[in-house]
């Protein structure tokens, strides 16, 4: 008699909790009154994330096994990435909880009476919460998926909500909608590449699972052209998600147009999820053909770092600058991918944390700097912010310094560990490029710091709003993490010693 497959629900529970909460959120949106809705949604989301986090902690020692009939791998790195994503998502949710950033009614035409009346009525739609939870679920699934179908599904589950969320901004809605459109079209375009690549990998190895592909590499005779096309096209899909050059074009536009809390959430969590999946695919699936893909990924790493750093120099919009900064960091993480070692994996994981929290912190501060028409993202108008609000300026500078990799911030340790891993694997050239790029990147990070503290303040309309408690907590968390991990990174590294492994 056929038995039902053993799915190992305990191990899948974190994802299921999030998905369940998302569905609950949909119901809340449909049935609960306006007054309660918002708070309830926040509560559900935060509790779900915390619960998922706890569940992950509980099962952390059951690692190195697979679940859902081998579709996902529950291994050290998988658990760790999921924990990172949840932690980052938690902070992201704290920003998103400030619903003032989101349009009251997404379907209303910008500037219409309909929109005005819904704002006046205080009727705030809160679909952003279930969407976020769906995205989180997709992000959690993406890096642990071990077969191409699951990967593709996870990719779409994480992407589709993000497309929508990008269009939800309350102010400058045209830009926001445009961002959503661009993100969606290009995202779908890249998905097609991903899928096409997946098809060829399947064609090459006859298997959809990463292990199967790895095995296929061993058995000679298969058509290696399929393999190469598969790797390239699959990589394009992944590189698009992480924002690597030349598949980065969407990043600045979407980062700028999307509501800032979403941008922060997206920048931090998507990067971790997409790189997590990429690490798994390359470490597990393509490990034995590394000589075929290492050169091109190395080249892309270099181009990405350099392009991101250089292009950021003349940017005048803070969100676009941060977008290019995220591109640069994608390049740095790619160095860790190319290292293809346990230390490389550990370095990448650490980097997710250091980069993620600094990014969330930076975007969090962007939400605070406003004038009457909303956020000010023109860097020129940030000039002299330090005088107006030293605390906010200091925090923002801290994040910039962390991005720049100044010692005693987490960003430095991240860079150090990435370079160390890369050097260890013999990719000394990448280290040199990384180091030189860091110098260029410092140029614009420090220019921002300079402008904030020592520029003359030009606009009188600029105000730094008093942040809500949740936002305050969120930024504080980012500050603390950035400093703490800069001073005592062993907090993370000690655990990475045991966790930075993939199940083969």
């Amino acid at each position: 008699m056929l038995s039902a497959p053993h799915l190992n629900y305990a191990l899948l529970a974190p994802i299921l909790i999030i998905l369940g909460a998302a569905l609950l959120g949909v119901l809340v949106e449909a049935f609960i009154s306006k007054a309660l809705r918002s708070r309830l949604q926040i509560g559900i989301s935060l509790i779900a994330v915390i619960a998922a986090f706890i569940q992950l902690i509980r099962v952390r020692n059951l690692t190195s096994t697979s679940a859902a009939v081998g579709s996902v791998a529950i291994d050290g790195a998988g658990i760790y990435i999921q924990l990172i994503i949840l932690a980052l998502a938690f902070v992201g949710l704290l920003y998103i909880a400030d619903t003032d950033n989101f349009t009251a009614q997404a379907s209303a035409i910008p500037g219409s009476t309909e929109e005005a009346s819904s704002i006046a009525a205080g009727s705030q739609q809160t679909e952003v919460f279930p969407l976020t939870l769906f995205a989180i679920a997709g992000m959690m699934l993406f890096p642990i998926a071990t077969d191409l179908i699951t990967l593709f599904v996870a990719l779409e589950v994480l992407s589709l909500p993000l497309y929508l969320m990008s269009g939800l901004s309350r102010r400058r809605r045209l830009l926001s909608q445009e961002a959503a459109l661009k993100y969606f079209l290009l995202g779908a375009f890249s998905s097609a590449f991903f899928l096409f690549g997946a098809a060829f990998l399947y064609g090459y190895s006859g298997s959809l699972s990463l292990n199967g592909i790895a095995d296929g590499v061993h058995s000679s005779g298969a058509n290696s052209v399929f393999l190469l096309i598969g790797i390239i096209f699959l990589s394009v899909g992944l590189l698009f998600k992480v924002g690597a050059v030349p598949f980065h074009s969407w990043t600045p536009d979407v980062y700028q147009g999307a509501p800032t809390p979403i941008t922060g959430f997206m920048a931090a969590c998507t990067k971790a999820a997409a790189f997590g999946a990429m690490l798994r695919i390359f470490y597990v699936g393509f490990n034995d053909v590394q000589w075929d893909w290492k050169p091109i990924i190395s080249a892309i790493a270099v181009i990405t770092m350099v392009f991101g750093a250089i292009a950021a120099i003349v940017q005048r919009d803070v969100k676009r600058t941060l977008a290019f900064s995220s591109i640069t960091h994608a390049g740095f993480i790619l160095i860790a991918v190319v290292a293809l070692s346990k230390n490389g994996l550990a370095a990448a994981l650490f980097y997710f944390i250091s980069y993620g929290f600094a990014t969330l912190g930076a975007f969090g501060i962007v939400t605070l700097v406003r004038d009457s028409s909303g956020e000010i993202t023109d860097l020129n108008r940030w000039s002299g912010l330090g005088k107006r609000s030293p605390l906010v300026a200091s925090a923002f500078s801290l994040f910039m310094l962390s991005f720049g990799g100044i010692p005693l911030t987490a960003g430095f340790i991240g860079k150090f560990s990435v370079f160390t891993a890369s050097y260890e694997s013999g990719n000394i050239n990448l280290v040199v490029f990384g180091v030189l790029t860091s110098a260029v990147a410092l140029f614009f990070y420090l220019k921002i710091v300079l402008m904030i503290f020592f520029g003359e303040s030009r606009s009188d309309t600029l105000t730094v709003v008093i942040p809500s408690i949740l936002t305050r907590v969120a930024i504080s968390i980012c500050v603390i993490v950035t400093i703490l991990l800069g001073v005592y990174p062993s907090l993370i590294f000690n655990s990475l010693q045991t966790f930075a492994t993939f199940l083969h």
Partner: protein
Amino acid sequence: MDIANYLYLSAALFTIGAVGVIVRRNAIVVFMCVELMLNAANLAFVTFSRLNGNLDGQVASFFTMVVAACEVVVGLAIIVTIFRSRRSASVDDASLLKR
């Protein structure tokens, strides 16, 4: 008929889709081109399924169809919103975010 021809067809479809994305202005058409690319991948899956003698590829193509349907839902929502705002479905009009 040589099974490779299916792959050539798949590649051709994929290329046509990609070119379409690049050259067409109407957002709906662009989106349709993307769908064409997804279907090209589907064709490849099915072909390889045949080639490899297992059904995994066919299963994958079903998943793809479902996902594509979801994409349509989200995509059309976005395109319609932007059409309502701008009275235009041209992707070139949506180019405020730049530089």
